[in-house]
Structures are given as C-alpha cells and as structure tokens.
C-alpha cells in the first residue's frame, strides 16, 4: 500500500460519513440562540404581573416604593442614560486622541505597541476592582472637585450642591475609564484602515499633517469612530458592579450631576436578593427595559460598523 492511495481512501471515507463538525457547529449556535430566547422569555414571564399592573406608567413614574407596592423606574432610566452620556463626553475626546496618536507615526512602532497594549489592558480589569478603586481613589478627588465646582458655579442647576462623593459624576468618571479601551481600539482600527493612497494624496496636494488628519483621515474613518462610540455607550449602560458601588443608588431625580443617582443595572444588583413577589416582578420588568435599551444601542453600533466596513472595502 502506498501512502497516497491510503490517504485518498480515508478522505473518501470521511466524506461519505455524516459531517460531525458541521453538526456540532449547528448545535452550538442553536444552543446560543435558544438560550438568549429562553432568557428573554423567562424575564418576560416573571415580569408579566408587573407589566400587567403598571403598563407604561412603569416607565414614567418616579416612585420606587417597595413597601407601598408602587414601582416606577423613570429616575433609573434617566440615571442610566445620563451617566453613560457623561461618560462618553469624557471618554470620547480622550479615546479618539489616543487612537489618532497610535495610528499616526508620531512615535516608533514598538512604543506605540506598548501604549496600545496598556490601553487595551484597561478592558481586562474586573468591574469590582474599578469599583473599589473608585471608592478609595476617585471619590475623594471628585468630591473635592465637586465642592469647588459647587462653590463657584453652585447657581447653575446641574452643578448645584451639596456635593456628594458617591454621585453621578463619580460614576461617570470611572465609566469613562472603563469604556476607553472600546473607543480607542475600534477607532484606531478604522483610522489605520484608511487607505494609504488617500493619506499620500493629501500630502501630495501639499497639506500639512494636521490638515491631512482633520481633513482627510478623520472624515473617512468617521463611521467607524461613531460605531466605537455607540458600542462604548452600550457597554456603559449595562455596567453594573462599579456603578452600583459609586453612584449612590438613589431613586430621586435631581438636576445636579453631583447628587447621587441610580441606574437600572445597579437597581437590579442591589435589590434582587431580598425582593419578594411584586418587587421581583418589577425588577424583572426593569431588567427587560435594560435589555431593550442596550440591545437597541448595540444594534445601531453594529449596523454603523458594518456600513463602514462596506465603504472602506469599496475604496480599497
């Protein structure tokens, strides 16, 4: 028996049997999809009594009073959205600047690689560690900053006092650091995938480096940067542990970013353990709302990202 015949024989044998790998892949993906479906079904099922009882009022009412059987999550929706947007406001300029810095040749490649690695390492730190760091490091700093802001701009409602250490502002700072790697990584990717010809064309027409970055490179990478920001927003909205430790978990609405606030994820983490009956149903309803919001945000992000990839593929 020569080697080639045995090989072709076994290949034929392999082809005639059922394709187990294919089956395995099908099974694995089916299990994933079914699990998501099952989770959502279970949440809707256990939320049903609350959905039935409160309906849309649940979204607009600001009373979360477990002992009076009245539940409304408006302050928590506001807290979720505002804390994430403030975090984006802080993280976006920083993240984009790092991305530009890393995609241009300001520094030798090995140094850039190290910086890139360090920034992406931020994503590997567990949430609870951010929370602890926030309690011991960020809170004292943000409290003294907030005290100063209140003393100077206290008349403006969003900077009104008294300034708390555990506040929307503190939570947003830590959130901003947590989502920084998302913004940097995806933005850097889309910046460095801007075709070389465009860059060279800009220089050939006599533009300086800054003109090339601002006029040519950033606009062509813009959709990717937008997608990065939206995905980061999605991550910030779903973040639980660090926020629950830092935001102050209050269900009162306040104009001031230096007041305690609450988020949907934090509400769930805090109250699930000791909840009973209608409170459990209401928490499930809140979970459903959180899922819908983050799913929606992530879908927009994915859509924009796909759109970019199509576009850049065309230029290439």
């Amino acid at each position, binding site marked *: 028996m020569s080697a080639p015949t045995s090989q072709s024989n076994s290949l034929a044998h392999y082809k005639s049997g059922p394709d187990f790998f294919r089956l395995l892949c099908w099974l694995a993906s089916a299990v994933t999809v079914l699990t998501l479906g099952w989770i959502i079904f279970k949440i809707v099922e256990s939320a049903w009594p609350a959905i039935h009882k409160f309906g849309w009022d649940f979204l607009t009412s600001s009373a979360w009073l477990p002992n*009076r059987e009245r539940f409304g999550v408006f302050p928590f929706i506001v807290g979720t959205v505002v804390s994430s947007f403030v975090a984006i406001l802080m993280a976006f300029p920083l993240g984009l600047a790092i991305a530009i810095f890393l995609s241009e040749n300001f520094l030798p490649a090995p140094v850039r690689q190290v910086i890139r690695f360090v920034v992406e390492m931020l994503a590997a730190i567990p949430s609870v560690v951010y929370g602890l760091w926030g*309690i011991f490091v960020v809170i004292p700093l943000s409290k003294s900053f907030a005290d100063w802001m209140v003393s100077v701009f206290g008349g403006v409602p969003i900077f009104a006092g008294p300034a708390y*250490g555990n506040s929307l502002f503190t939570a947003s700072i830590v959130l901003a650091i947590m989502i920084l790697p998302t913004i940097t990584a995806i933005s850097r990717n889309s910046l460095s995938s801007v075709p070389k010809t465009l860059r060279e064309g800009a220089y050939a027409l006599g533009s300086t480096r800054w003109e090339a970055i601002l006029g040519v490179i950033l606009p062509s990478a813009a959709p990717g940067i937008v997608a990065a920001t939206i995905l980061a927003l999605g991550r910030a909205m779903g973040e639980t542990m660090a926020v629950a*430790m830092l935001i102050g978990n209050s269900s*009162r609405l306040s104009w001031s970013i230096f007041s*305690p606030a609450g988020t949907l994820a934090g509400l769930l983490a805090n109250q699930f*353990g000791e909840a009973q009956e209608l409170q459990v149903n209401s928490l499930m309803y809140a979970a459903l709302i959180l899922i819908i919001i983050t799913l929606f945000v992530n879908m927009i992000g994915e859509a924009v990202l796909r759109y970019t990839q199509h576009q850049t593929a065309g230029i290439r």
Partner: protein
Amino acid sequence: MKLKTTLATCLSLATSLFLTPKASAQQISGAGATFPASLYQRWSVEFNKVQPAVKVNYQSVGSGAGVKNFTQGVVDFGASDAAMSDAEIAKVKQGVVMIPATAGIIVFAYNLPGVSDLNLSREAMSGIYLGSIKKWNDPMIVKDNPNAKLPDLPIQVASRSDGSGTTYVFTQHLSAISSKFSDEVGTDKSVTFPVGVGGKGNEGVTALVKQSIGMIGYVEYGYARDNGLAMAHLQNKSGTFVEPSMESGTATLSAVQFPENLRVWPEDPTGVNDYPIATFTWLLFYKEYSDEAKLKALKEFVNYGLTTGQSFAEDLGYIPLPASVVEKSQAALATIIKK
C-alpha cells in the same frame, strides 16, 4: 474488556465519592440572613471541633432568599432577620418553629472630626432621615449638645441601597417614634428615603461614613465599632440619651415580652437605660423532621449555639442573648419532633 474495567473503576470511584461522606458525617445545611452569618459560621467551626461527626454549612444568601429556600425544603434550617410572617409560615406544611439565636443593635455612625458623644433626640433622628434637618448646627441638634462645636455643614445621609433586615429594623423604630416618618417612608427591607445616598451592605454604608466629613448612616454595631466610627447616643422613650454598647443593648433585649411564637421586636423600648434600636435574629426550623439522626445533630448544634456559642457573640459585634431568652429558645427547640 479493558473498557469494562475502566468503567467499573470509574463507577466505584463515583459511588465512593458521593456516598461515603453521607455515611461517616452528618451534614446539616442552612441558609439565610447575612447579618448573623459570621456568628453562625463560627458556631459551625467550633461545634465541629467538639462533634467532628457533624458538619454544618451555613450560606449567607439574605433573609428573603433564606425564607424561600426554607419554604421550598432545600435546606435543613433557615435564618431571617425578619423572622417569618404568618402568610409565609402558612406555606410550610410541616409547621415552623422560630428561635431567637442572637441579637444586635443598630447605631447612627457619623463622621464629624472633633465631635464625640453626639446626642440625637427622637425628633432629630427622624428629621435627619426625612430631610427636614439639613445642617449639623440645626437648633434641633444643638439643643441636646450644648458643649459640642457643631459645624455649619450640610448633613449627608447614608442608607442601605440593598434590601436588608437592618433597614427593616431601623425604619420600624423610626416609624414607631415619628408618625410623619411612618407616613412618608414606612417600614420595609428596602425603602426610599427622601434624602441621602445609598451604600451596598453594612460595609458600603460604613465606607460612606468613613470617607466623607458630615456623613451620617445606620449600620450594625459591630461594623461601626471595628471601623472606629463615632456613634451617636440616642434618646429612648423615657427621654434618656443612651450610648450604644453591649450593656444597653442587653438591657433592651432582656425587657422584651415574648409571644408564643417568639416573633417580637422591641420597636420602642420603654426602660430608662434601654438602647432604642435593637433586634433579635431568628433561626427557622420545621416542626417535624423525618430523619432522626439529623434531628439529633441539629438540636445538638443549636443547643451549643445557644449556650457556649453565645460567648463568641461579643467578639463579633453581636449582643449575647439574655439568659431568660436562651431559656425560651431552648424550650422552643425541645418542641421540634421526629415525624
């Protein structure tokens, strides 16, 4: 042939793994309140030294989850800071015996450098948590602290953001002393206070108070003591300002009149030296157990906890049960029978 042997070995190994511990040691499992967890776990460790054949595993999953597990019958005993309501008891067909196992007091911990032995009147306590007293130099606080230098600082109020027995007992007392508090906030394991910031767990509130000057919060005595926080002297029903301590807590608990089911709270104690906010925490048992050996081990364990076990309480920040209460608990324990 070879496969068969391997299979047989695996099987026997699995059998020995799963079955042997059951034969050699009596396993008892319990679940419930987080507040007494460190004491129950200590009992379990110490009892195992005395009685190596019995292993007690207590999981601190929270009072609510503890009652749920107990009702479903997945644990041998439950534990709850809020005992069990009549509606909850009705769901357990074997019947329920509730036994006070240890006790604690809840303190107002505050952070005001230079101000020690702060006195808080009943109006001040509820006023702070209703948001009507906003500054540390409010006349309502100043009148009971003539010698203290109270600063012109806003009072920052900390509370528990998670559901807890601590909040239940705390709001129960404030509701008992202030009808306004009872109307606006009420009593529950999680409530919405009109002011303040929420921390997760006793450790979360402790961290809040420790970090910000001007913060006040309610925590279990042990947490405030171990973290060196200043604790306010609270005014009780008779008008005296009482320092939180083992003695004043014991005074409150000794005076409690128990109903038959042993479920009672000193909502607003009347004695002159009683500390106003104190509570028992309960172990929950079925009235009947089918496994005689387990019942025997369980009774031995609880008896140990109620007698020798009380000596660990003070170390861990709990109030040892007064002798009269231990007697009542032991009598209740004796009523548990084999089915």
